[in-house]
């Protein structure tokens, strides 16, 4: 069995007051991502999926702090890495794309320069060379007229184009892991479909593993091989995507799937009600006490 690329072990974090963590946000989360695998984290707002990704990137801001556990990336614990080392990994081996590309791009610098910066910083290229590579990177994410677009500032671009620029930047250095935090939530459906296809194809071609975070089960299903369902700072269920959808085992997952209006599910006889999670789960506080449901992994990683 190959070693996992990212191995998160019993990660705990919360709001820190002095030396103690007062409000736990992650209560011991463990999962692994294999090289080249697309892993989805799904859950509602506040379930802890975004803080998990920020912890991996080493971008937690005060007062949030990790209080326990390990984040092993290629066997190296990121939590004990010096800041300088972390900076070398971030944007190079581990990269991230965000929900709102406008806030993630520098409004005062051309997109070409922002992408070129990646090559200069992480690969020691000259600016001339880096600019050429940046145009190439834009062409790779299928931006029309890449030479001309490289000279644009972010603001005249549409949301879909900006997100493509973000993807170009994130994949510039052929990272091992791409973290995508709700990258298509702000986009129109047809643009979303194009961006998802792009992420899927480019990452598959480069062997980049993806940690995909979304509240949209449909998006997760179209891109990930395995899914972890988060609730209240815990991973409540994890399975291969197909198996999770066909046979959800945790009450919360079942509720989440039932709450989704699904295409083609409307019957001849009027509109049926959607499942209200709160109606099947009487006490949400008990949810995370139920045991974590994951398929038993035996030799060879099979079910």
């Amino acid at each position, binding site marked *: 069995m190959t070693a996992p690329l990212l191995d998160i072990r019993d990660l705990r974090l919360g709001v820190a007051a002095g030396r103690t963590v007062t409000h736990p946000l992650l209560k011991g989360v463990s999962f692994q991502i294999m090289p080249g695998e697309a892993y989805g984290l799904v859950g509602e707002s506040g379930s802890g999926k975004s803080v998990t990704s920020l912890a991996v990137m080493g971008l937690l801001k005060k007062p949030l702090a990790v209080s326990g556990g390990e984040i092993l990336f290629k066997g190296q614990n990121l939590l004990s890495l010096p800041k300088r080392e972390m900076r070398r990994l971030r944007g190079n081996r581990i990269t991230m794309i965000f929900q709102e590309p406008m806030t993630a791009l520098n409004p005062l610098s051309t997109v070409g320069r922002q992408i070129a910066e990646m090559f200069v910083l992480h690969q020691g290229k000259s600016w001339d060379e880096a600019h050429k590579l940046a145009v190439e990177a834009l062409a790779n994410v299928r931006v029309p007229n890449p030479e001309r677009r490289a000279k644009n500032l972010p603001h005249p671009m549409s949301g879909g184009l900006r997100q493509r620029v973000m993807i170009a930047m994130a994949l510039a250095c052929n990272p091992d892991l791409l973290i995508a935090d709700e990258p298509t939530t702000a986009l129109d459906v047809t643009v979303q479909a194009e961006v998802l296809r792009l992420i899927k194809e480019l990452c598959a071609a480069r062997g980049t593993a993806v940690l995909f975070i979304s509240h949209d089960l449909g998006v997760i299903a179209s891109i990930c091989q395995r899914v972890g369902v988060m609730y209240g700072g815990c991973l409540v269920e994890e399975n291969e995507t197909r198996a999770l959808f066909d046979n959800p085992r945790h009450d919360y997952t079942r509720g989440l799937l039932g709450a989704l209006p699904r*295409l083609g599910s409307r019957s001849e006889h009027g509109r049926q009600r959607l499942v209200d999670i709160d109606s099947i789960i009487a006490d949400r506080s008990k949810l995370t006490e139920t045991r974590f449901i994951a398929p038993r992994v035996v030799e060879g990683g099979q079910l």
Partner: protein
Amino acid sequence: MTQPLLQVDDLHVRFPIAGGGLLGTGKRMLHAVNGISFSLAKGECLSIVGESGCGKSTTALSILGLQEPTEGAIRYRGQPLNGPGAPGRMQRAKAVQMVFQDPYASLNPRQSVRTSLAAPLRLHGMTAASEIEGRIEAMLKNVGLTPEQAKRYPHEFSGGQRQRIGIARALILEPEIVVLDEPVSALDVSIRAQIINLLLDLQEKLGLSYIMISHDLSVVEHMSDRVLVMFFGEVVEEGGWRQIFEAPTHPYTRRLIAAIPDPDVALKPVGRQDERAEMPLLAGRRFVSDGRASPDVFTPPAPSELVEIGANHKVRLAMA
């Protein structure tokens, strides 16, 4: 045939855009809505779907009287809602109300729920405090909140609860038509299901007619009776929900449906319509647009017509 509740005829909205032309003095017209016609029956849920910039929100604002149409007529129970003879805002408020996408942005943070809900009642001449209190209490119960929550302020509520307040405020004057502008797209999956259920219950209980604006087609399929698909200011396809979702005909409708990330489709790709497939001509006639290239919004669209291809199922084709 009974009179429709709302009738929209050949609605056009154009916006003058400053700049352009010699010395930046010329005015160009942006064609936002180009000849939309539809009717809404009592108790019906009509959805208008399309992407950003297709004119669906402008259409809704025209119905609400927040955007004066350039051309066309909007009638409510036979009475004109625009142009000369249009009713004032007070009367209009009792006919049509709106639920917004982001309830937090549309609620006054300095007003308690009670103050927010009481204001329209007072404006409409209700003075007795007990009567106002009774209406507010009943409305809060209707939307699944408790009367005690009336004294709280918007920031004290969760997203789903705020949307319930938004719905309560839209319904407090007992309008017949409610325009829902992306009512659930800002909400989490589980909350979304609760709000959808609530909207359907209220529709049944109060006999409401909905005009829902959305780009989330799975929600549209779940809630609507009829669907209008808009593309750059024009209706390109119109039909009952079954026709739109089971026999989508216009290439743009197909593209929209194919783009929905649906778990069932993603996992079992068999039987999915290939959006890239070549569209055959329909009875020897062309579609005006394939829904890919963006038309120029500053020129009027090429002449075309909506052609009936089934019972109440229409699709836009180029002139023969």
